[in-house]
């Protein structure tokens, strides 16, 4: 309880400090370069100076935090990737050479590509289908809320939920995991799903798809509603079937949104960590890059060189999407 009070106290203190900073610097700026009650030329000159300085005063705390927590670490990680485990000795490319010779790393790259192929595609697909279907029924909003709900659940919580679904009891005893119970009811033999190499990756992916479909659905549902009615009416008049309208009229009009959803989930997939850590911790050939990176960060007292070089690989995979995002954002601003 005491620490919660401490937290609230710090929070109030932090907010007050921020407010004090903004009020204080603004007041100071107006005192040093007053524009009221001055002669015309002096006033306009002061006004110009304050207008040049003020944006930077407004942005300073945010830029400072961004620089320390995101920009500096990017460069530092790249530097560390070329250094040894303690970050002291320059070692050239040897971390990367080690990496590509390491079986666990190659396994992770392979698994990550599997995740990249499957999760964004299926999440977007289910999201689109559910968005289109729920728009037509009266209880669509309730259905949407329920499917959207896993978004709020932490990856670890979701891992527990699904671990319970996948739970395995030896053959003959009663299954308490619903998946094995269904398999047994249909006459199959129960399986320890998490320990079947290759396929266990897909059982892990199901968790992320379960979480992310709601996100895709919300965005795509809004996009579908934004389609001009006339295009659909025209198609109906021309005698197009429901399927044709959906795939030939509606989907092409929301390609842009589909791409945004797809890339957003792709970024998330590249960073997937909690699910694998909680479910298998990379055992049974389910290792992924983010978990491997975390592993090396602390393994044997921490190998910062190898950890950083794996982080750099994740970063390199993200860069194309980053560039695409920046170009889209810039284009939008020019419009």
């Amino acid at each position, binding site marked *: *309880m005491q*620490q*919660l009070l*401490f937290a*609230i106290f710090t929070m109030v203190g*932090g*907010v007050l400090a921020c407010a004090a900073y903004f009020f204080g610097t603004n007041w100071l700026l107006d005192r040093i370069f007053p524009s009221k009650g001055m002669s015309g030329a002096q006033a306009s000159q002061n006004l110009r100076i304050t207008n040049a300085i*003020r944006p930077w005063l*407004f*942005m300073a705390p*945010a*830029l400072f*935090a961004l620089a320390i*927590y*995101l920009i500096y*670490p990017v460069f530092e990680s790249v530097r560390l990737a070329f250094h040894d485990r303690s970050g002291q000795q320059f070692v050239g490319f040897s971390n990367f050479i080690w990496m590509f010779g390491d079986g666990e790393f190659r396994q992770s790259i392979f698994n990550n590509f599997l995740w990249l192929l499957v999760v964004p595609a299926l999440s977007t697909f289910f999201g689109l289908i559910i968005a289109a*279907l729920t*728009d*037509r029924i009266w209880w669509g909003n309730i*259905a949407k809320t329920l499917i*959207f*709900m896993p978004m*709020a659940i*932490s*990856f*670890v*919580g979701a891992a*527990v*939920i699904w*671990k*319970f*679904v996948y739970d395995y009891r030896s053959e003959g005893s*009663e299954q*308490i995991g*619903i998946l094995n*119970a269904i398999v047994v009811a249909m006459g199959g033999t129960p399986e320890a799903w998490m320990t079947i190499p290759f396929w266990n990756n897909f059982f892990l992916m199901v968790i992320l798809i379960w979480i992310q479909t709601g*996100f895709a659905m*919300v*965005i795509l549902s809004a996009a579908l509603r934004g389609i001009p009615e006339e295009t*659909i009416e025209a198609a109906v008049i021309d005698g197009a079937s*429901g399927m044709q309208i959906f795939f030939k009229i509606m989907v092409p009009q929301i390609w842009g949104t589909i791409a*945004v959803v797809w890339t*957003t989930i792709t970024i998330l997939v*590249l*960073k*997937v960590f909690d699910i694998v850590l909680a479910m298998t911790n990379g055992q049974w050939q389910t290792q992924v890059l*983010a978990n491997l990176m*975390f592993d090396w*960060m602390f393994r044997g007292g921490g190998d*910062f060189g190898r950890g950083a070089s*794996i*982080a*750099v690989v*994740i*970063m390199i995979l*993200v860069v194309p*999407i980053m560039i695409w*995002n920046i170009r889209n954002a*810039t284009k939008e*601003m020019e419009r």
Partner: protein
Amino acid sequence: MIASARSPLIFVVHLSVLLLVALWTLPTAGLLISSLRDKDQLAVSGWWTALSTSSQNLTGRAASPEAQVEKDGKFVISGNLLEGGDAKVSAFGFRPMQPAAFEAGTAADIGDGQMLTVNADGSYEIVSPTKMEGTRGQRIFYTASVPPRFTLDNYREVLSAAGIGSSFINSLTVAIPSTIIPILVAAFCAYALAWMPFPGRAILIAVVVGLLVVPLQMSLIPLLRLYNGVGAFFGVPAKTYVGIWLAHMGFGLPLAVYLLRNYMAGLPREIMESARVDGASDFDIFVKIILPLSFPALASFSIFQFLWTWNDLLVAMVFLGTGNDELVLTGRLVNLLGSRGGNWEILTASAFITIIVPLIVFFSLQRYLVRGLLSGSVKGG
């Protein structure tokens, strides 16, 4: 859409949506139901059978021979295995290998002329022609059909014994300041990027958009080193709440600035111009006009940031200690998965406590969450 709503296929739509909804909610429902079940029932039967009577193989012990009474020249020990529950005994036995050798109500010869009878209501009687010796009671194995039982015992246990209670406080300690502190910082920055012309603005916006997708993994090692360095320099621990609050603020800022800038840039220009004509400075305009108008965007961001900090595992694992007063809920849950992997009554109750706060936030503030998502902005775990 208009045409197909009347088509006979509409019931197929209803059916498939129902199926999808079931698929999406059943796992969570299973967790919730299981966490409320009696732990012995939970261990032997699926949660979908929670409402039906379950058959369990149980072990009990009769009262010790010291409790025997003499009756009509015979020595009798009696009692009840079920202690007043509403279960029903169907069979019993006295050897571990044959736990259901005798039907309830029949008498079993357990040696030395002693007869054991267990009735369906759980009452038992051992009748012996001679005085019984020893201090330990006879072990009795029995099969009982137990009616469904729901209880809050699992929650009581995890909140006290499993440390979930203190972790709950820790998670709140992490999440609340991490959510509130960045708001003002981000709002000022967003206003400058949206409405104050200065050279280099477009580049800064591009940088923020780029930072949105920088993987957290890039920041971990350098910041860990930085924190260790700062901690060693000032002689303070490297893993503190202050450290994680600042880290969450740094990681949340790109999304905050981007969301708020988009929202503010969409506000009508006339408001600001008329205020400026009246002699208001940028500072006044921001504090008195823009900030109140931006409430929906601020709410969206706060919800994102709260969900993200509450649900976060990675940042807490790196920047916060693992002591009882620092381990957050997600971290505790991962530990429990390792140490109590088979105890589903612990895991389900703990997991539900972990997800209940985000679910409440989600259901009560869904409107703002959706609006935030729709302003084209997402960070994700």
